């Protein structure tokens, strides 16, 4: 098959071959355009915006509740309680409290909704067949989908942290941050650590998003995919709390989620953090591969 034939666009039909083919090498802008389109789809969807709004509202409510309860101090839980006892002295800690509480269910829920819906939603609506006959390219579509999921997960974490910091600053004093290891760092460095915590948690959510993307390629029902991802996350968290399963704990997707508190010590416990990031990376690679393998080999009958 000659390449000349591929370019032989008949004059009939008003085709503009030169115009079309001149664009072919522009794969990078094409990819950017698809990515932007994915982002628009995710961030202009009312449901997703409502999710982000809820993520912003929770730390505000949490801050108000803790402010009202402040004289008596907190109780129960380990990581949470040490943060809560610190909160009265420093509003920055509201960010850590909010993340600790919300990483258990609310953040995974937000990521599950967007990632579970990613492919299954398009299949369910039937828009997938229109995209594929454009043709968008299956690998390209799945890459753009995953990139948008990662951006959404990061945005969700940023929304939680930003809302927490704003609420914390409004309701509590702000100043140098006393770390969990007992030493105190200036506010600027404390905020830098907040940023690192945000990125670490975003990485955790990116790994969960990969699982969601993979699940999403197996069904045409977005609700089913979303529920599956959420159930997987919760089961992993429960298993992580059963001592008899200690042998598999480090391999659970949720095991390393709470290890962001290593960032709040001096010196920073990098080995735990690196383990966590390695776990997230492996989960992302494995499940993106599953998603790709499934999506590029399956018949689209929706």
């Amino acid at each position, binding site marked *: 098959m000659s*390449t000349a*034939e591929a370019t032989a666009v008949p004059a009939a039909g008003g085709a503009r071959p030169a115009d079309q*083919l001149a664009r072919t090498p522009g794969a990078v802008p094409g990819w950017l355009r698809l990515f932007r389109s994915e982002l628009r789809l995710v961030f202009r969807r009312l449901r997703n915006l409502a999710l982000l709004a809820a993520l912003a509202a929770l730390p505000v409510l949490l801050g108000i509740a803790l402010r009202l309860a402040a004289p008596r101090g907190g109780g129960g839980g380990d990581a949470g309680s040490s943060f809560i006892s610190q909160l009265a002295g420093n509003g920055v800690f509201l960010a850590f409290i909010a993340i600790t509480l919300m990483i258990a269910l609310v953040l995974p829920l937000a990521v599950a909704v967007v990632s579970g819906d990613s492919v299954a939603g398009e299949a369910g609506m039937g828009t997938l067949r229109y995209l594929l*006959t*454009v043709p968008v390219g299956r690998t390209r579509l799945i890459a753009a989908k995953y990139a948008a999921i990662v951006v959404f997960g990061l945005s969700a974490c940023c929304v939680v942290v930003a809302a927490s910091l704003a609420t914390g600053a409004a309701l509590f004093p702000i100043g140098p941050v006393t770390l969990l290891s007992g030493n105190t760092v200036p506010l600027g460095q404390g905020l830098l650590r907040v940023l690192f915590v945000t990125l670490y948690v975003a990485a955790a959510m990116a790994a969960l998003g990969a699982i969601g993307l993979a699940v999403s390629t197996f069904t045409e029902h977005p609700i089913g995919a979303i529920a599956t991802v959420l159930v997987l996350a919760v089961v992993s968290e429960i298993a992580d709390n059963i001592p008899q399963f200690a042998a598999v704990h480090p391999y659970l997707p949720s095991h390393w989620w709470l290890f962001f508190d290593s960032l709040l010590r001096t010196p920073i416990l990098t080995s735990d953090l690196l383990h966590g990031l390695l776990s997230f990376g492996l989960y992302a690679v494995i499940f993106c591969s599953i998603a790709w393998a499934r999506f590029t080999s399956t018949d689209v009958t929706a």
Partner: protein
Amino acid sequence: MSTAGTGTDAGTGAAAGAPEPGSEPEAGPGAAPSGPPGPPPGPAITTSGLTKRFRGGQLAVDDLGLAVPRGAVYGFLGPNGSGKTTTIRMLLGLIYPTRGSVSLLGEPVPGAAARVLPRVGSLVEGPAFYPYLSGRANLARIDAADRTADPRTAAARIDAALDRVGLLSAARKRYRAYSLGMKQRLAIATGLLRPRELIILDEPTNGLDPQGTREVRGLIREIATGGVTVLVSSHLLAEVEQICTHVGVMRTGRLVFQGTLDELRSRGSNRVVIRTAQPGEAAATLTALGLADIRSADGEVSAQLADQSPERICRELVLAGVGVAGLDTPRPNLEDLFVGLTGEGFDVDG
């Protein structure tokens, strides 16, 4: 099936027949240098031995050999469930064949789908868009997915496509609020976002009112007069009869007829109808001529014409002393032909 036009291409020995499946790696960008437009090579669509067996074991398409010439308006007929949509999905690379190969515009699919599908517009199994986006935003989404489309001209091309299907005034309306006809037209507009060489429309008039059907028919005619090959699947025979030059008829996954509309008509069991006051004698003469399926009723005798000429029958009747009040060879009805090819009804084959 494969045409003889292969040697006429530029001296590269391009084979435009049925290419082997997967013989082409997915073309990288820039693999196709822009050359002077050559003559239209080969047929627009060919499939050979195309077979799809779904995982449940159901044989949806069985050894299909489609041949759609360039410039044709090809009516793809068959009852519901006869495998038309599965075939169209295989043509567009949505479903992978179990066996056999597909060639679109001389390129193998799905092997070279990335290269050839931008030249193909399609509507598969009804409209499907994001309900919360406007018609224009939906087309922008489709266009953004096309890496070979020029983003600088996107807005103009989208508006032109909307204009062509008469949706420009509803461009800002959410898709959710569209009527069924508008949804269908928006789906057709995706095929018009850029110039195409081939348009594949799966049941484009499904669910449309008579005006909508007329509009779509007009649109298909207009597309075809530009030299674009059109494959339109339908079970509305009147529609096919009005716009198509070629016809393929499927039944339970197999192609039971393929050719021009005239060939289909001539294939039909043409009958000769004689009006006469002496039906008994007329029937006897027809029997003597070797005609089959002779029926007489109410001053009329009819028989299958087979390869006899009506002139000869008339002469024999007159020589036999039968008074012929009228002799007619009515054009076969497309619906009768269709039912003859596909069996009893539209919804029975499964």
